[in-house]
């Protein structure tokens, strides 16, 4: 059931995507560093490390990570 919901969600997202977006000359804002999804990778790495150690959930934003005894 979860897989079917996921597939439906993905098809809606992809279907909707073809109508969205910008032309290459409209990318001025999107090209700025502050609009990058991983603009501050070291901040994200340190946050992941803290919350991986102190909570029981992981994943979502990326693959891998962890690799510590984490008391």
């Amino acid at each position, binding site marked *: 059931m979860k897989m079917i919901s996921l597939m439906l969600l993905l098809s809606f997202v992809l279907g909707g995507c073809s109508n969205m977006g910008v032309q*290459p000359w409209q990318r001025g804002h999107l090209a700025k560093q502050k609009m990058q999804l991983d603009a501050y990778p070291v901040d994200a790495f340190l946050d992941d490390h803290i919350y991986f150690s102190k909570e029981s959930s992981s994943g979502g934003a*990326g693959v891998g990570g962890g690799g510590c005894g984490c008391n």
Partner: protein
Amino acid sequence: MQLKKPKPIRRLLTAATSTLLASTAQQVVAVEKTPWQVDSAFLYYSEKDRVTVYEPVVAVRKETGDDEFIGVRLVLDSMTGASPNGAIPTDSPQTFTAPSGASSYSIPAGETPLDTSFHDTRAAISAEWEVPLDERLKAVFGGNFSKEYDYTSLGLDATFSWDLNQRNTTLTTGLSVSQDQINPVGGVPTGLTSVPTVVGVQKSTQGGDESKDIMGLLLGVTQVVGPKTLLQFNYTFADEQGYLTDPYKLLSVLDNSGQLRASDPYVYEKRPDSRQRQALYAKGMHQFGDDVLHASYRYYWDDWGVTSHTYDLRYRYELAGGRHYLQPHLRYYLQDKADFYHYSLDDNNIPAYASADYRLGDMSTTTIGLKYGLVLGESHEFGARLESMQQKAEGDAPFEDNTAVIFQLNYSFLF
């Protein structure tokens, strides 16, 4: 004379922009020897009465060819302080043997038992190679290795991103594998056997070391919605097999009267030896004027019964002149416990698996913080952030709050 059919202006502009950008990029690469981008940070993380961590990080990245990059990150992680051992506070003082079995520590009446013998230094190195495989297809290959006194981890990962729809849609898929080795101080205790209460008495062990294997998968879509709006959706799956127990955690065992049982009052915890984790993640970014809003949500579930919601909001507020910014941060995490989480055990009913680690319990984490950034030039930036984190019980288990201060300094520059 027959006139050519005019090309649509949109197509012409696209071609012109692409050519312009491509030629500029090539010239820059050709003319200048590309510098190293250096990102450095120092993290200070300190819990009230518990763990303190000092963590310096240096990450370097360099363009080695057209859209081809290499990167290396070094991390040192120094931990000192005390960590909850899983036992409950009682009306009388308690004494525990340290994991080595060679010493003991005492906890006053009414206080949460914290293992004070806890200190470690962890060193980690990771490297990545980003390479275009095609005009629209990019790959990132990575590896990481970390070592601490009782724990070693080795991992590899690969991520592929495919641009579609005039680069407005990006499909991403990633795969990671890792193997971790654990060599606990004093050996690997046999799960749910009694913890020695006298120094010099040997605990029951199942060997000197254990390992676990982790495989991770990511499927994602990133979509440009408009000139100032981006959306990202990910699904991640991870399969963990092997020793997933914390060898230093215990549980208190209570008798019919609700008191610690007279003999063998504590047992070592025991977790299942496999775990499947899944998460759905959505992130949105929107620029308001010069400011940027980041909002994300994650729903997480696993076959241990843990489910959680994570909400994260950041707002980058540009100060006058555009060289400084302030970024408030709010994060809220709400977790439902694992099926085998128990605050304490009942003498007459010892289950097959049990852990009293509060991180597997019903709990929440609230983080409030502020970052200040000073942009000194292209890829030259200084940052400082101060945050407060509070973890508290959300169910029947009355474990104590954990509060922490997070302070971080960042400095990025070209070298």
